C-alpha cells in the first residue's frame, strides 16, 4: 500500500515556480529520499505535504487523507522534523517533549512514559533536565526527531536530518533513522548528501529545479551511470609503452591510463577483457598487482542523470542550520 501519493504538485511564489508538477508514491514502511541540490524544491515539497504551505496546483494523499480536505486528520498520524531544530530553548529536553505530547493530545498517563522512552532511545536521558538551548547541534537534531515521534506517528518527514552536523553526530543520527525504519515507520527524508541517500533510502527521487528527473532504488539509479563494465587494473611496472598491444587484445573496450602502471578498461565483453588482460600481463611479464571491477557510485548516476556537476551538492546554505 502507498503511504503517500503525490500528484502533479506545483508551488509558485509570485511567478517563480519552486516545485513544478511533481508526482511520486511512497510505499508503506519504506525510506523514501528526495535528493537534490539546494534550492531544488525539497523543503517546499515537504511543507506542502505537512500542511504548512498550500499547493498552487495538484494534490496529494497522506495515509489515504486528501491534503486539501483531510490535512488535520493526517496531521495526527505524521511526525515532522523541519530543516532547522526549532524546539524551545527555554524548556528542558523533557519539557519540550511533554509540551509536544500535550499539543497532540497524548493521554496524560502516557506522556511521561513516552518522553522517557524517547529520551533513552535517543541517548538524551542523562540530559533530560537541561535546557534545549544548551544542547549541541547533534543533540538538538536528535531531540527534534524525538519530538516528532511523541504521538507515535505512522509517517515521519525529515528535512535535511544531518545538515550541519559533524561526522560522528551525523553517523549516529543515521543509525537512529535506520532503527526507526526497522521498526516499520514510513520515512520521507530530504537530503543533498549523495552518500546519505545511498545509505538510508530504499528509493530515491532526484529533484532538480522543482522537477523529479528520476525515481528508483539506489541500485537502479546506479545502473543509469554506466551500463558498461568498468575494470581497474594495476601492474607491477610501467606499461604505457605497450598500449597498442593491449588495445589489440581488448576488442570493443576503451583503455584509459590513470598513471604509468594503472588504467581503467571500460566496456567490451567482460570475460574476453579479463582473459586479454591476463595474457597481456603474462606475455610481457608485467606482474599484474590488482584487478578490480568498479561499481558506479550514486554520484556517477547523479551526474549522468542530471547533467550537473557533483559539486552543486557540496554547496551548503550559508548561516542557517543546527
Amino acid at each position, binding site marked *: 500500500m502507498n503511504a503517500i501519493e503525490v500528484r502533479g504538485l506545483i508551488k509558485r511564489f509570485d511567478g517563480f515556480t519552486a516545485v513544478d508538477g511533481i508526482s511520486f508514491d511512497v510505499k508503506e514502511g519504506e525510506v523514501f529520499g528526495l535528493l537534490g541540490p539546494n534550492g531544488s524544491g525539497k523543503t517546499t515539497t515537504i511543507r506542502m505535504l*505537512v*500542511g*504548512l*504551505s*498550500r499547493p498552487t496546483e495538484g494534490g496529494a494523499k497522506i495515509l489515504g487523507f486528501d491534503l486539501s480536505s483531510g490535512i*488535520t*486528520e493526517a*496531521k*495526527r498520524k505524521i511526525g*515532522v522534523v*523541519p530543516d*532547522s531544530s*526549532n*524546539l*524551545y530553548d*527555554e*524548556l528542558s529536553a523533557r519539557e519540550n517533549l511533554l*509540551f*509536544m505530547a*500535550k*499539543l*497532540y*493530545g497524548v493521554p496524560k498517563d502516557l506522556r511521561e512514559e513516552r518522553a522517557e522512552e524517547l529520551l533513552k532511545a535517543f541517548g538524551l536521558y542523562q540530559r533530560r533536565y537541561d535546557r534545549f538551548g544548551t544542547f549541541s547541534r547533534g543533540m538538538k537534531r536528535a531531540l527534534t526527531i524525538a519530538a516528532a515521534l511523541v504521538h507515535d506517528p505512522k509517517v515521519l518527514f525529515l528535512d535535511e536530518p544531518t545538515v550541519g552536523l559533524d561526522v560522528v553526530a551525523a553517523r549516529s543520527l543515521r543509525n537512529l533513522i535506520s532503527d526507526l525504519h526497522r521498526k516499520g515507520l514510513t520515512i520521507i527524508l530530504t537530503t543533498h548528501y549523495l552518500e546519505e541517500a545511498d545509505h538510508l533510502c530504499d528509493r530515491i527521487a532526484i529533484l532538480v529545479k522543482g522537477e523529479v528527473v528520476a525515481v528508483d532504488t539506489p541500485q537502479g539509479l546506479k545502473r543509469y551511470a554506466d551500463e558498461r563494465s568498468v575494470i581497474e587494473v594495476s601492474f607491477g611496472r610501467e606499461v604505457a609503452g605497450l598500449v597498442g598491444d593491449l588495445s589489440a587484445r581488448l576488442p570493443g573496450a576503451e583503455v584509459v591510463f590513470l598513471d604509468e602502471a594503472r588504467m581503467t578498461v571500460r566496456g567490451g565483453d567482460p570475460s574476453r577483457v579479463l582473459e586479454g588482460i591476463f595474457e597481456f600481463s603474462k606475455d610481457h611479464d608485467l606482474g599484474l598487482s590488482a584487478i578490480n571491477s568498479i561499481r558506479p557510485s550514486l554520484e556517477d548516476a547523479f551526474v549522468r542523470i542530471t547533467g550537473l556537476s557533483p559539486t552543486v551538492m557540496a554547496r551548503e546554505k550559508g548561516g542557517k542550520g543546527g
Partner: protein
Amino acid sequence: MIRDDLRCIYHIAAKDMRTYYLKPPAVSWGMVFPAAWTLAFYLRSPSNFDDLIPGLIAMTILFSTTAAEAVVINFELRLGSLERLLLAPVSAESVLLGKVMGGFFFGLLMTSMVTLGTVLGLDLHPDLLVLIPVGLISLLVFSSMGALFSVLFKEVFEAQTFLNLPRFLMVFLCGVVYPISAMPWWLQQTSQLLPLTYTVEGIRAAFSAAPSSSSKDLLLLAVFLMLFLLPAMRMLRKRFE
C-alpha cells in the same frame, strides 16, 4: 475537532505564560509601569487618589496584555517554533487564539492583583457585576490588538515600536488621567475611536456611586474585539499559504 483546538489553545497559552510572561520584563511593563505612571500623576497634583484607580486598572489591562505579545508571536515566527505549533492537528486560528489567551491570562493575573490591592487597600466598593465583564472583555480586546500588531510586522522591535503608538495615544486620550470632557472637541472625537475610552468609561461606571449602565461600553468593546481578532487570524493564516 473542537476538543483538539481547545486543548491546543490551552497548552499554548500555558506554555507562553511560563516561558515569556511570568518573567521580569513582562511584569515590569504589565504592572510596574502603570503603577509608577499613576503615582507620578498623583505626586504632581495630589488630589483624590481614588479618582485615579479606574485609570490605573485600565492601563494595567492595556499594558499587561500587550507586554509580551510581540515576543510570543514575532520571536517564535522568526525562530520557526510557531510553525511547529501548526504541525499539530490545529488550525492557524486556534494557534493565534492560544497566543491571545496567553496575554489574556497574564493580564487577568496582573489586573486582579492591582484591582484587589487598591480596592482592599483604599476600601473601595466597585460594582463587580459591571467591573468583571468590562474587565474581561477589555483583556481580550487589548490582547487581540497586541496579536494583530505582531502579525503585521516581521521583527519583534518593529511590532513593539508600532504597538507603542496606540498604547501611548490611548493613555493620553482615553480618560486615563485627563478627563475626556476637558479636551478640545477634535480630540474628544478621536477618543471615541479608541477602545480604551470604553474600558475607562466602563470601569469608572463600576466605581461610581451612582449606578450607571455599561452595556454601550461592552457592546463597543465587543466590536473592537472582532476588528482586532479576525484580521489577526486571517493574517497568520496567510503567512502559511
